[in-house]
């Protein structure tokens, strides 16, 4: 059975570099070494095998499926470079999270025992040594006792002890009949490689035409039996609910381990006490304050966390797991909504209690309009997180505040033609929806405002999906 199939795959990354007409298959039971000098395209090839990058032409199959299908990774483990688990989660919690992505995982104890990390349950990733980090990556790779293990330059950063550990793990995997594709150029590992390898593929970049091709494919050993591997179908539908619950739990852990941010969530609403207790102004001031507070958290919270996780390599790690991106995004949106609900409840409660705002029984309508109307902006934050770096997301959030205030009623010197464009701003429609909910004067086009916000949510959603699919997301 072919676990990896590449048919005439080409990918051009620049004028002077591209993969050209790569065809290869890797069968069950093989231990294949992929060699080549730096810049020969080994990592690009791995990215395409994992579906992190798409070929310009040709076809890639992983375990008989398109690598973009999360199910193709149900029985594939990987140890890659430039990936990092989230820093606010402990080793055991992280392994439990990772297990939830697979249909039939090993137990947490089995996984940690297999890589000798039993005493490190409560360590954060940053506190692990280089060898322990490598072992943790290995733990993730074997979480589902994979059929295929893909390893990218695994011993590059390891000391002698780490290398010893690593080769023990690899030998154990071979004894279990796991097929291995390893990218390596380490000459110090030659003896170990020669003892285990069944095949050696060499990639070479030609300076003259800028194309990288397979120049050698040698059989150097016998394929081992994989009879002791448990077989199960990867066609079974994925169970999203446990994945979503575990992912949401991990997101909440990250939130509660960031006390400064948590304090900010509680302190910002408390500033409502600075509003003037003036009967004529206080309602509109409270609505402005609530709207700005919600918009800030909606755009900044989700945008910054996605941008940070993308730049740290956590998203790349997720993409090589069977976790569908929708589950990851749904967990982020759920946590953001929870933050916004707490924030808004505090503002409305303090507004009613401390400065005596009267809403004449309209509190539920105000609350619902403010929360439902902010959903398109949460999606905007998501799109920004995939498009920009963390610092830029923060600045864009900052700049969106005067824009929102201007389109919702702050008079700034602007020509009539600019003022005519205000109705195209989703902030304007959000503002009008909120005014309606509070029973205040608005322009009487409620349905149009609702329609516009739904439309804005769709556009931001499509933008987020496109940004997610962009190749550069994983290459930065």
């Amino acid at each position: 059975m072919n676990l990896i199939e590449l048919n005439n795959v080409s990918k051009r990354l620049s004028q002077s570099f591209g993969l050209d007409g790569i065809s290869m298959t890797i069968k069950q039971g093989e231990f294949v070494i992929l060699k080549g000098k730096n810049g020969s395209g080994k990592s690009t090839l791995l990215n395409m095998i994992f579906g992190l990058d798409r070929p310009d032409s040709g076809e890639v199959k992983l375990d008989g499926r398109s690598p973009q299908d999360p199910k193709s990774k149900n029985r594939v483990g990987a140890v890659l470079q430039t990936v990092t688990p989230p820093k606010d989660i402990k080793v055991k919690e992280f392994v439990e999270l990772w297990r939830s992505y697979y249909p039939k995982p090993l137990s947490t104890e089995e996984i940690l025992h297999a890589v000798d990390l039993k005493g490190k349950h409560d360590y954060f990733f940053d506190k692990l040594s280089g060898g322990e980090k490598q072992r943790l990556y290995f733990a993730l790779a074997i979480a589902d006792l994979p059929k295929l293990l893909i390893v990218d330059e695994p011993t590059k950063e390891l000391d002698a002890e780490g290398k010893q550990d690593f080769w023990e793990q690899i030998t154990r995997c071979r004894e279990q009949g796991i097929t291995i594709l390893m990218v390596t150029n380490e000459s110090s590992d030659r003896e170990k490689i020669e003892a285990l390898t069944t095949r050696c593929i060499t990639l070479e970049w030609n300076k003259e035409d800028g194309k990288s091709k397979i120049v050698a494919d040698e059989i150097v050993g016998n394929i081992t039996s994989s009879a002791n591997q448990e077989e199960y179908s990867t066609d079974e539908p994925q169970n999203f609910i446990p994945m979503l619950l575990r992912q949401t739990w991990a997101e909440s852990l990250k939130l509660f381990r960031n006390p400064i941010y948590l304090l900010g969530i509680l302190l910002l609403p408390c500033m409502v006490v600075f509003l003037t207790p003036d009967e004529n102004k206080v309602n509109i001031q409270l609505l402005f304050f609530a709207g700005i507070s919600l918009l800030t958290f909606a755009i900044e919270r989700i945008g910054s966390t996605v941008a940070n996780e993308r730049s740290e390599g956590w998203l790349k790690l997720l993409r090589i797991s069977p976790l569908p991106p929708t589950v990851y995004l749904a967990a982020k949106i759920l946590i953001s909504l929870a933050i916004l609900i707490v924030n808004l409840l505090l503002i409305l409660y303090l507004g009613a209690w401390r400065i005596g705002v009267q809403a004449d029984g309209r509190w539920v309508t105000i609350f619902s309009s403010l929360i439902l109307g902010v959903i398109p902006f949460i999606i905007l934050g998501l799109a920004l997180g995939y498009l920009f770096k963390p610092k830029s997301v923060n600045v864009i959030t900052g700049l969106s505040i005067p824009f929102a205030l201007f389109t919702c009623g702050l008079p700034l010197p602007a020509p009539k033609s600019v003022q005519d464009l205000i109705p195209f701003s989703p902030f304007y429609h959000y503002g009008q929806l909120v005014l309606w909910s509070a029973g205040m004067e608005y322009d009487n086009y409620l349905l149009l405002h609702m329609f516009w916000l739904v439309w804005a949510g769709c556009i931001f959603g499509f933008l987020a999906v496109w940004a997610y699919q962009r190749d550069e997301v994983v290459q930065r």
Partner: protein
Amino acid sequence: MESQPEKSTSPSQAGKNTSLFDFEKPIVKVMGVGFLFILLITVFFTITRGSDFCVFTIGSCTDISHRVNEPMAVVGVVAGVTAAVALTFIELPAAMAVGVGVLVWWLVNSLVN
């Protein structure tokens, strides 16, 4: 080495998978139709501006009523917003920057009134 290409792909497919303007993708079709719709409404608002022909009225016939119209109140808001935006440029998280902006707005408001 494996045998040479079993399936060939036409050169026109090169780059298709990553292009934003691949009109065969449903997502791009929907976005295209949406943008045309927005363009149509923009033209409508522009050509009916200032006339009595009002269907939607917003932005064309009706003057959008600004609710903050006391100059002194505007000074406070502008100061607060400027402080918030400036702080995001020096990498303070936006939520904290808005908090500081609210404080500045309150201080300026207290001083001018």
